[in-house]
């Protein structure tokens, strides 16, 4: 028998706990631990470096289930959705700056017409990113503002729309209906323009992220995730479960409150950060 490392119950439990501590969830954590246990059986020595390597591979294989040869379509409408306080408005500003530096003609659409000072906040970000913004009257129907933004932008040569929306809890049916209306309006106003519909998710979020992703995905077919606040101590391991269970890829990571604090998602680096 070539390899036959048998990991102790204590080691297996410790592995599972550290994965759960990253918010990976016990189902994903236990599946990964079983895989690593099997992989170690083919090894000759119970070397901790080997253990780390197998753990990272198990995480990476789940992250790689979703395509990573993605480029931003041209033209494109990027719709940012998610629960309250996740970082949508800030992310809209960061994306606007990044895509504008990439040579796109960017327009920010102030689709949050509900929350106090929402439009003012996005306007400040538009000014920092040096991009145009279209906003409506506070309290106007979001779909009307989005429609006007797209129509106006298309007639002025915009090729990259970034639509900010109001935070909403996924269990609020009326708010989810409002969002579906916004999606329909995007299709009406910019027919044939590729849509990116991204769930903005706070890295501090626990298992509820699965419900969030499932619900938003069911209502509007998400095409990706932006994971924010990774400059904090939360690990964001839940995206491993989201990639495996829902096939949702992470596109960008928010790593701070500044305009430049956004980096493209890189699966290998993320796996290494989860399993240091």
């Amino acid at each position: 028998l070539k390899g036959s490392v048998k990991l102790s119950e204590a080691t297996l439990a410790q592995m599972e706990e550290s994965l759960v501590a990253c918010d990976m969830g016990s189902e994903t954590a236990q599946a990964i631990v079983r895989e690593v246990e099997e992989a170690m059986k083919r090894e000759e020595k119970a070397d901790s470096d080997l253990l780390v390597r197998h753990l990272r591979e198990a995480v990476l294989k789940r992250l790689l289930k979703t395509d990573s040869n993605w480029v931003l379509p041209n033209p494109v409408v990027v719709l940012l959705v998610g629960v309250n306080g996740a970082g949508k408005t800030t992310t809209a500003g960061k994306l606007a700056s990044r895509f504008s530096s990439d040579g796109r003609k960017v327009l920010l659409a102030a689709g949050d017409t509900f929350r106090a000072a929402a439009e003012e906040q996005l306007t400040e970000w538009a000014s920092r990113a040096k991009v145009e913004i279209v906003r409506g009257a506070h309290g106007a129907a979001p779909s009307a503002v989005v429609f006007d933004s797209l129509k106006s932008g298309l007639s002025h040569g915009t090729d990259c729309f970034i639509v900010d929306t109001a935070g909403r809890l996924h269990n609020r049916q009326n708010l989810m209906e409002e969002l579906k209306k916004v999606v329909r309006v995007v299709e009406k106003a910019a027919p044939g323009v590729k849509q990116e519909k991204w769930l903005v998710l706070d890295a501090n979020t626990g298992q509820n992220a699965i419900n969030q992703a499932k619900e938003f995905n069911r209502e509007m077919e998400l095409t990706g995730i932006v994971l924010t606040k990774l400059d904090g101590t939360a690990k964001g391991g839940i995206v491993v479960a989201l990639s495996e269970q829902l096939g949702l890829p992470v596109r960008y990571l928010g790593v701070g409150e500044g305009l430049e604090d956004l980096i493209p998602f890189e699966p290998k680096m993320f796996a290494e950060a989860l399993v240091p």
Partner: protein
Amino acid sequence: QLTEKIQKVFKNLRGQGKLTEENIQEALKQVRLALLEADVNVETTKLFLERVKVKALGKEVSLSLSPGQVMVKIVHDELIQLLTPKDKNANKLKFAPAPPTLILLAGLQGTGKTTTAAKLALWLKKDGRRPGLVAADLVRPAAIDQLATLAKEIDVPIFKPEPGEKALDVCLRAVKTCLQNNANILILDTAGRLQIDEDMMKEIAEIHQKLKPTNIMLVVDAMTGQNAVNVAQAFHARLPLTGLVLTKADGDARGGAIFSITSVTGVPIQFMGVSEKMEGLEPFYPDRMASRILG
């Protein structure tokens, strides 16, 4: 459902008179899964299961309750007990012997501090008090506009930063001038901050040192995961927290993080945010929270 899962575990326990180490082991596994699924911290879960095990061992299984029912009741009661502060008045706001009473709000970015500040102001106003809001977030774009808009909506005075003022300065000036502005309770809204951001933690620690607020509340998002305890312990080390506010409780997050935080720090849960509206603030009920966490 946890109750059904535990009932299943004990289905073959007919006729065995007691709960033993062996037969509750599988039930404890089910409880563990339920708690982790509810975002209770891994370490907090371990300690909780130990307590449940001690309570469960040797429990007589009566004819009126199945072993599964006994088990679930122990878990439920233990959770309620840990969510209930020892001091019955711990979950109420404290008022200073001499006005103004200060309420300092702290927490990570986006947890709901600004919204909660206004909700608290309305709560106090309805209680016959004279609250004032202090806009001490000089970081987030349009943060001051946001609080000012809410202050106008609930008709409460607001203190906004003057040119050149830092967070501490606007708080000091508000304390100096609030009584003549008809406000004897000040709610200090601060910028969201990471517990590992030394400059920002120093800023809020200084506000505490110079103003000694009677109430210092950590605002926690109900959907927070395993990181909750790290964050809360760090804040509690720099600020003597007097209460926790659980926000966005109208979502379907189980809210286990708040249980982890209160059991690790001993800080009582005082309020729940249950909507985006200004009326969306409720007192905290341990038994409701226990049922919610257990799913």
